[in-house]
Each structure stands twice: as structure tokens, then as C-alpha cells.
């Protein structure tokens, strides 16, 4: 039984973390998400971390790795719901999560993904000409 359920909504995978993630859970999540991306060919990943109260350097790296892996599989990743206190700690640790897109909440995250999909379609259309 996976600790983080992964739902599919259209071409987006949604993973809502239910409790603080420990190293092994984070790795499991990364593997499960990557496998699911390959299986479904989804083009976006929405990762909700609103209940997570501690993000250490390891989890920060796993989040970045998830985004990089997803990019290789042709998908955008948006991490949503980072708590203010967590954001402050991350910055103090020098973990700015460069390369990871962020949004305030799932709603704004989905809107951002839609914008990214649209921008990609436009680029694709102009490349085809």
C-alpha cells in the first residue's frame, strides 16, 4: 500500500502527501510517480506538500529529482502548498528548490499547469509551420 496516493486527472498526476515524508517514503514516492508517468504518459505532476512540516536537504533534493525526472519524461512538475515556515527554513538552509515550479495551493498549481500546456501547444504549433 503506497503511503502517498497518486491520482490521475486528465493528463495530470496528483500526489497529495498525507504526512511528514521520511527518506524512504520520499524515494518510494519518486519511484511510484516516475513509473506512473511512464505508464500513463501524463504531462503534468501536481505535488501537494501542504501537510509537510519539515523539508530537509534530502527531501529538498528528492523534490528536485522528481521534477528533473518528470522533465525527462516530458512532464512539468508543480509543488504546491509549501508552508511559510517551511519556506523560511528552506531558504535559510540555502535550498531554494531551483528548477522546481511552485504554487500557493492545488487550484493555482493546476492553473499553472494548464498555462504551461497551452504555452507548449503554441510553441509546438509555431515549430510545425
Amino acid at each position, binding site marked *: 500500500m503506497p503511503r502517498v496516493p497518486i491520482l490521475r486527472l486528465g493528463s495530470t498526476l496528483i500526489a497529495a502527501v498525507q504526512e511528514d515524508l521520511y527518506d524512504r517514503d520520499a524515494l518510494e514516492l519518486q519511484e511510484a510517480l516516475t513509473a506512473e508517468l511512464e505508464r500513463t504518459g501524463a504531462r503534468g505532476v501536481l505535488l501537494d506538500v501542504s501537510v509537510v512540516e519539515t523539508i530537509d536537504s534530502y527531501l529538498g533534493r528528492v523534490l528536485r529529482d522528481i521534477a528533473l525526472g518528470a522533465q525527462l519524461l516530458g512532464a512539468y512538475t508543480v509543488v504546491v502548498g509549501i508552508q*511559510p515556515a517551511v519556506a523560511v527554513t528552506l531558504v535559510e538552509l540555502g535550498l531554494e528548490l531551483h528548477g522546481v515550479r*511552485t504554487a*500557493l495551493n492545488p487550484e493555482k498549481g493546476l492553473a499553472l499547469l494548464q498555462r504551461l500546456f497551452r504555452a507548449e501547444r503554441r510553441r509546438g504549433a509555431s515549430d510545425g509551420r
Partner: protein
Amino acid sequence: MAQERSRGQTVSDAQAATIAQQRETIRELQTPVIQVWEGILALPIVGSLDTARTQDMNEALLERIVQTGSEIVILDITGVPVIDTAVAKHLLETVSAARLLGAEVLIVGLSAHTAMTLVHLGLDLSGVTTRTTMAKGLELAFARLGLEVVRRGPPAPAAALDRGDL
């Protein structure tokens, strides 16, 4: 003698209390977070930025971002006298923290002098969008949110209307 000392003690206690109160007032006043439009927050920074102040500022800003669901933050540094490496580092911390909550930070109010200083110090602000004035920053913020300001007719200042000139 003992009485005099105790009076002196009371006076200095009162002074200490006043100073503490004033310090608290200054702390509250120095970093107001203003919602200038739906989705846009502005922070006019006046005076220099130290670590404690940056922490207060970040805390207030992040709370307001969550509260208002804002996507753009405009940091106005017109009132910051000197931008050195320490101040720049603090500004970048604010930018990064807000970004983690999904908000983009625009830094406005850079003077030519500040720009030259930053270049000479070799500070990398390439990841940050900057503009010279608050007006230009607001214009950019509107553009980011897909908003546009248009004039509907000739300008009619309220003062002229009040005087009955029209």
C-alpha cells in the same frame, strides 16, 4: 539617599519602557505589506535591512501571500539608502521564500547608482525581475495577471469638478 536612588531607578525604568515601546512601534511600522490589487502585494522598504528585520519582513509577507492568495509581490527599495552584499543577500532570501509559495517577486526602485553598485559588487540578480519605479513594476504586475489599464476619456481631476470649472 536610598529614596533618591530609587527615584533614579524609576526614571531609568520608565525610559527603558519607553525605548522598548518605541522600538516595537518602529518594528511594526517598518515593514507594512500593502495589497495594491487583487493578487498583488507591495512592500515599501525604508531604511536599511538587517537580519532581524528581514526575518520580520519575510514572516509578514509570507503570511499575507497565503492570506490573500497573491501571485505577485513588488519590493520597493527606493527608501533603502545603501545596497551592499548583506542587503542584497537579504533581498534574495525574500525573493526565494516568496517563490516557494508560488509568488513572483519584482524589485523596483533601483537607481542608476544602485545598479552600478550591484554590478561592481559582482552580485548576481539575474534570477530577479527588476524595474526602476513602482509604476513600472505595477504595469508589469498587471501584464503578468493579464490586466490592462485603459483611459476611458479625457482626464477630469476631481479638484476641477469640485470648483465647478466644468
